[in-house]
Structures are given as C-alpha cells and as structure tokens.
C-alpha cells in the first residue's frame, strides 16, 4: 500500500478523517492505478436474483478492481428503469440490508480478489442509525458506501461515522457541480470520487455523453483520489473513451439488465471481460 496525500482543497466540511491512512478501497484502487491499468468497477443489485452473490463473484472473475453492490431501496431516485426494476425484484424477494451484509461477509470470509463496497440510499442507513450502520458495514468487511441522495452539505454526520468505522465515503460529483464545490467534495471524499457521467439517472446509453470526459478531466485536475466515472457507461468502447481522462469506469445497468434477462454468471464474466480487455488494451 502506498500512502496518498490529497491535493489541498477549499475548506471542506470534513476534516479529521483526512489524517487517517487510506482504507482498503482507496489503497487497492490506487495500487492498481499505479500499475498503469484502468479500473473496472461493475455494479450488481443485491437480491435481484437468489444467486446474486455468484454474480458478484462473476464480476470479480472478470478482473474487476472493486465491485459495487446495490442495497435495494423502494424509491431509487437516481436510478433508471433497469436498476429500478432490479430493486423492485430484490424487495419482492425479501432482500434486507442485514441479508446483504451477511452475504457480503460470507463472500469476504471465502476471500475476494478485490474489495466490495455498497451503494444505497440514505434512508436505509438513517433507519439503522448511522453509527450502527457504519459498524455493521465495517464488520462485514464492506470497504465503502456510495449514497447518491446524500450531498456534501447533508453528509457531515455520516462522514464522521464512516471515518471512525474505517469505511470509505465515496462521493459524487456531477457535470453541474461548480469548481469550488467540486474541490470541497474531493476533500471530503475517500475511497474514490464518483464522477457522474451525464445529467440523468443510471441507464444504458448508445452514446457517451460529452460531460463524461469533462467531469473526469475536471476531477483529475483537482484530486489525487481515483476518479471513476459511472452513469451511462454501456460499452467497452465508451469505457475506453472516458478513461482517456478517468481512472476507471462503473458499469451497472448493462450488468443488471443481463442478469434480469437470465444471463448466467459465466455470461456476466464474459460481458465484463470484454470491458477488461478493452481497458487493458487501451
């Protein structure tokens, strides 16, 4: 692991956790980036099919550098049709945060080649209690959390609980985020910074939005944290293109749609393998 100093930024709402050594998610991603490779971070909605942990393993088999596990919420405001439907199915199947955490703990006990982190909506953690939520995630070996409905100015309490529990607080930056705010967000984030590639919700797109590379370039100029772009990255070509500026990509809706259409774990590995090869070839 290499120690990583962050670019001094505008005074942020965070503070004390900046002094801490980077957690596992951040350290791993920085290490991989240092080898010169681009980062591949697939997303799977937990509970959308009974064998979803095998889908996480399938993503890892494809050479993922980390896997984002979605904890389903009844009102996924930032998600498009595919992840909405996956979330709905997961809830119909009785998926709960406790179940997801237990399943991830099990995967971690067997051993994963790359870190797992979660994405969910704030209410799920709020209901659990922020301290308890952070400890629960940390104990299961979950390395970070992305909460798309928790912007910087509401995140103070969560940032300190997450830091105390040693899990990364991945934060999002949008194409509309002004520069000074972007710097404050980078300063408060840990793990990586999630560049929102387009103005819109998650979902597959035929074209890469021009904003995807723009947000990546702006972030790269502002932070030494890994910069990973998600929302609308649907093909290996798009991934390669955005990685001319970004350190990596998140691939979500394409994975989730294929799983809903009945793809086997092997097919998911092959699908994500095409991203891995394209990114490695550059």
């Amino acid at each position, binding site marked *: 692991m290499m120690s990583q100093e962050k670019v001094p930024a505008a005074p942020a709402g965070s503070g004390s956790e900046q002094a801490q050594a980077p957690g596992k998610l951040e350290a791993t991603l920085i290490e991989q980036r240092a080898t010169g490779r681009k980062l591949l971070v697939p997303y799977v909605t937990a509970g959308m099919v009974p064998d979803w942990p095998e889908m996480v393993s399938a993503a890892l088999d494809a050479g993922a550098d980390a896997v984002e596990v979605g904890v389903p919420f009844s*009102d996924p*405001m930032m998600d498009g049709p595919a992840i909405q439907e996956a979330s709905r199915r997961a809830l119909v199947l009785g998926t709960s945060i406790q179940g997801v955490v237990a399943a991830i703990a099990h995967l971690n006990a067997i051993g994963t080649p790359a870190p797992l982190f979660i994405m969910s909506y704030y209410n*799920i953690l709020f209901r659990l209690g922020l301290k308890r939520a952070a400890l629960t995630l940390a104990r299961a070996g979950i390395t970070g959390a992305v909460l798309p409905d928790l912007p910087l100015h509401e995140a103070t309490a969560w940032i300190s609980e997450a830091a105390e529990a040693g899990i990364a607080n991945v934060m999002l930056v949008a194409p509309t985020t002004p520069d000074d705010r972007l710097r404050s967000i980078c300063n408060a984030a840990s793990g990586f910074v999630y560049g929102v590639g387009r103005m819109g919700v998650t979902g597959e797109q035929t074209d890469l939005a021009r904003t995807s590379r723009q947000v990546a370039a702006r972030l790269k100029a502002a932070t030494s944290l890994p910069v990973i772009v998600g929302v609308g990255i649907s093909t290996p070509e798009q991934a390669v293109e955005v990685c001319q500026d970004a350190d990596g990509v998140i691939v979500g809706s394409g994975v989730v749609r294929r799983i809903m259409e009945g793809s086997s774990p092997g097919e998911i590995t092959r699908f994500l393998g095409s991203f891995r090869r394209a990114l490695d070839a550059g």
Partner: protein
Amino acid sequence: MIRENPRSDDPSRSSAPLVSEPPNHAAPGARKDNPMGDPGPRGYFGDFGGQYIPESLVPACQELEASFRTAWSDRSFRETLDGILHNYAGRPTPITECKRLSDELGVRVLLKREDLTHTGSHKINNVLGQALLAKRMKKTRLIAETGAGQHGVAAATAAALFGMDCVVYMGEVDVHRQELNVFRMKLLGAEVRPVTTGSRTLKDAVNEALRDWVANVGQTYYCIGSVVGPHPYPWIVRELQTVIGTEARSACREILNGADPDVVVVCVGGGSNAAGTFAGFAGTTAQLIGVEAHGGAAMTRGIPGVVHGMKSMFLQDEDGQILEASSISAGLDYPGTGPEHAWLGSTGRVRYATADDVEVLDAFSLLARLEGIIPALEPAHALAFVIRAARAGEIPSGASVLVTLSGRGDKDVAQVLEVIGP
C-alpha cells in the same frame, strides 16, 4: 380546547395533549410572533427538512432558493402574483358560516372556501406562484407530479396561462382512477406521462419527476405540488399557500368580533393547504389540528426518514423501505408529510389526527345535505374530525371551528357513487 377522549382506541384520537398556550418554538430565522418562519438557507424546520438530493440537482435547488428569495421580496413580483390570484383565480375566497351544520353539531363551523377558486382547489395558489417564478427564471418547461390529478390540472392550467410546455407525471394506477382529470390536463395542452414503476402511484410520480428534472435541469422548472421535497420547496409552497391563512384570519376576526377561531382543522396529505392555513394562525392561541387519512397517516403512524429530498415523517417498514398509502381520497394517498409538519408535530404546536374512509363519506354527504356544498374527499377528512370531536364533546359546545375546504367534490362524485351506490 379539545379534550381527550379516553375511550378511543385509535392512538391519534386520544393522544391529544390539552394545548391551551401554544409553545412558541421558533425555527431558525423564525420571527417571534410567527413560529412558521423562514427555515434558513439549509431549509431546516427543527430537525426536519434539508436537501437530500443527487449532486446533479444541488445547483438547481440553490438557484431556485436564490431566485425565490429575490422574487418574494420584490414588490412587483408580489403585486403581479396578487393580481393573477385576484383576476384569474378568484381570490380572496369567502368564509362561509355553516348554520345548519353548526346547529347539528353544537359548535360554530366556518369554512374557508378554497373550493371556489379557479380549477376548484387550493392547488392553484401554489402553481400560479411557482409558474410566475419559473417565467422569471426564464424556464420554458414545467414538470409536475400528480396523484388525484388536482395539482396536475392546476399545473397544466398555469402552463397554459404562461405559455409554457408542461409534462405531468402520474402513476399508472391513478391514470386509470382519474380518467377525467387526465383528459382535462390534455385539454389544457399538457402531456401526461403514466409512471409504471414502483407502486405506480403518487410517490413514484414524484420519483419520476425528480428523474426528469435531473436529466433536463437547464430548461425545466419542477413545480412540486405540496410542502414536500428538498429545500426550498416546502418553504416556497407554504409561502404561496399562506394566502389562505392570512385571508382566513382577517375574515374570521370580522365574523368573530375581533377574535380568532378556537380551533382550526385542516386535512393533511403532503400538507400544503394545512401549512398555508396554519401559517395564518400559528401566532394566535387557536388550537391547530391536522387530519390525515387513516391509511396515509405519516404523522400519527410514521417514523422519521429521508425520502424525496427531505427528512420528515414517513410510513415505512423497519428496514426503511417506504410503504404505500391507501385512502379513499387520492389526494391524501401519500406515505409522507412535509417537514414543517413533522416539526410542528414534534413541538406540539399542531396536533395530528386521522379520519377513516367511512366517517369521511358520512361527512361528505352531511355537508352536501345540510349546506349545499359537496366537498372534495380530502377536506371531508377535516370535516369528519370536527363531526366526531364535536359529537364526543372533545370540542366544547359553542366553540368556533375553522375548516379549510381545500377543494370541491366534483372530481370525487363518480367514485362516491361507486362506493355508496345511487
């Protein structure tokens, strides 16, 4: 004023503390004489409110708050809006004293007649203000969510008046339940987009409108229909509905020889007609009661949560998954309540109660028969509470009771026919 009824088994019916002196808890920035003040730049009413939105929408909400602050303190904006409310929407609305209903109940019932506004409900007060603001912000496209269709119709009306494009999101279930309102919106030139995700009702329509806003934020103004959503919406909508309370207070003083009503009772869905009414009386000694649908009682049966951009009270399971509300009135079919209500409930300034479908239908019929006014099913909840509380002696005889009649019942007549038969 209102006495407890110890025999009741409904927690919302018996938990009322006797509030004689309203506590004057002030929100940050609130004026001393009006506890319903400015929630400040972060939009908090006590612990409730805030701005729990995707980063993509943060600049838009900040722009909206700044624009509203400027417009609201701009005399010419206020005068323009007042003119439209007067000449187009028919304000001020009267207060009607219900002689026969009062005799029947032994309390003095006054109705604030929002049913007499253009489009037939208080929703018009909000949309005219927001559409005027949208124009001022140079937005060309108005989007809205709707449940029953009242807010959708109002938004489509305002869009027609101001020459803006209008898209209304409506749950597929509600599209079928409210065919006539869907047709009205189309006549007014709006596009109605059925929402087929989630429970396919109002809460999903809000999600879909928010998703549209994220994708089209530059040109689009999201005209939210109640005192819900991220800051500054709960504050903007309350300010725009305060005209109800302000008018009602001065009209009541004329009728009641300078006194305020003893009790003010208003129905609560998201809570906009209630917030607007309460804002006129929060600084008085009137007892304030908000009445929710039994199947949508976020204040009485919900717990704190964070959804639709706000920290407030929601019906949800232990895991924090939001539940579906269910009520005979589509306008109260929302599993949450605005953050200012969450705060007013937590301080005890407002008491929240519920009314069930059966007593609501009785109240609906009683007002029609005794006063010649067919109310919307939403305010029939407020009437149902008054009828129950007066008959139980919870409201002492002779007390004066103001009820906001938030809308007319025309939209509900077909549904009531189906339920109670010809």
